[in-house]
């Protein structure tokens, strides 16, 4: 599961991403452990002013963020592309009640992927999210990450939308086998 990258460039945008989320008062981080989000996850675990919530399956995070909103707080769901498939019916909660919803998806099954198992869900991420009313924004380069997350945060917490920021394999690197 240990990730590719580990380059200092990758760690830098991931740290900046965490700081950006915190600057916008995101205080609940929900995730199934994942290499692609390892910096965000470890930062959230080390941060006493946020709740860092390990899930058993990603759909739990969709429901949790609805509760976060009911309580007047902001949260984010961190997941891998395969986890998107676990969320589909639960997203009817978001669409039906117009909950704001922010998720960051670390992509597999696309640019440079060597594991054939990852393609089915990786390639389905955008069509199924779009079908459930979630707007997809792709980040392809390190310099895209912060502007993209800023755009997403505005769309979600001011515009009331559901938005997925896809951290693509071009950005995070393909896992080596």
């Amino acid at each position, binding site marked *: 599961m240990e990730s590719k990258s580990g380059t200092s460039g990758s760690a830098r945008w991931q740290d900046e991403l965490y700081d950006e989320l915190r600057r916008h008062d995101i*205080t*609940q981080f929900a995730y199934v452990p994942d290499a692609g989000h390892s910096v965000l996850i470890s930062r959230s675990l080390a941060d006493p002013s946020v*709740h860092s*919530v*390990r*899930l*058993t*399956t990603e*759909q*739990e*995070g*969709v*429901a*949790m*963020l*609805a*509760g*976060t*909103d*009911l*309580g*007047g*707080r902001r*949260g984010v769901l961190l997941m891998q592309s395969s986890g998107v498939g676990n969320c589909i*019916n*639960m997203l*009817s*909660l978001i669409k*039906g*009640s*117009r*909950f704001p919803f922010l998720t960051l998806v670390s992509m597999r099954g696309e640019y440079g992927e060597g594991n054939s198992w990852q393609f089915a869900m990786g390639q389905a991420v955008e069509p199924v999210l779009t079908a459930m009313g979630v707007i997809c924004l792709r980040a392809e380069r390190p310099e895209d990450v912060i502007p993209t997350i800023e755009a997403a945060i505005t769309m979600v917490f001011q515009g009331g939308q559901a938005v997925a920021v896809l951290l693509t394999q071009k950005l995070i690197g393909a896992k080596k086998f």
Partner: protein
Amino acid sequence: MESKSMASDAAKPAAPRFVLDRRVAVPALIGRQQDFLHIAGLAGTVYDISALTDSGANFYGLAGAMGAACMIGLGLALARPDKRVLVTTGDGELLMSLGALATIAVMNPPNLSILCVDNGHYGETGYQVSHTSLGVNLEAIAQGSGIKLTRSVASEADIAEGARILREGNATAFVLLRVKPTDPPKVKLNLDGAVCRETFRKALLHHA
């Protein structure tokens, strides 16, 4: 052999542990409903809590997204440590999200209580038998998931202790209420989730 034992179970009337009437037992366990922010699972429990709160502004109930109730409760309880959150849900809805019990146990917010109204059946779809009529014990699963404060309520004698657990705890509480498979109170449901969300937030946050 398996089918034989199932057949003999099915031939019995309601097992002796499913005797309470939910219309009596749920209000008795919850007591003063205004003391909680309520999340309700779909089907039976959304009727139970709609009736109890008169679909009040302290109530958000599901009519879909089965399996969401406990985790909505967790997000809300973490967001509002100053309020007591009660998730009331059925055996069918809880069976769909058993992992949520593990997730909640790890976080263990002391202001969250879960009341599972277990009638051993999928009432909304025609009272098909659920796993809990066939040997699955949801209190044991909650315990095994790591929830430290659990009780089963199967008779009138158990209600006072169950009610205490739902309100007190210095840890997340789980109460399994076993009831007979009879209908919840019939009230008109608010099926517009967006209106329900706005009403809830407006009351809690004093803005929408």
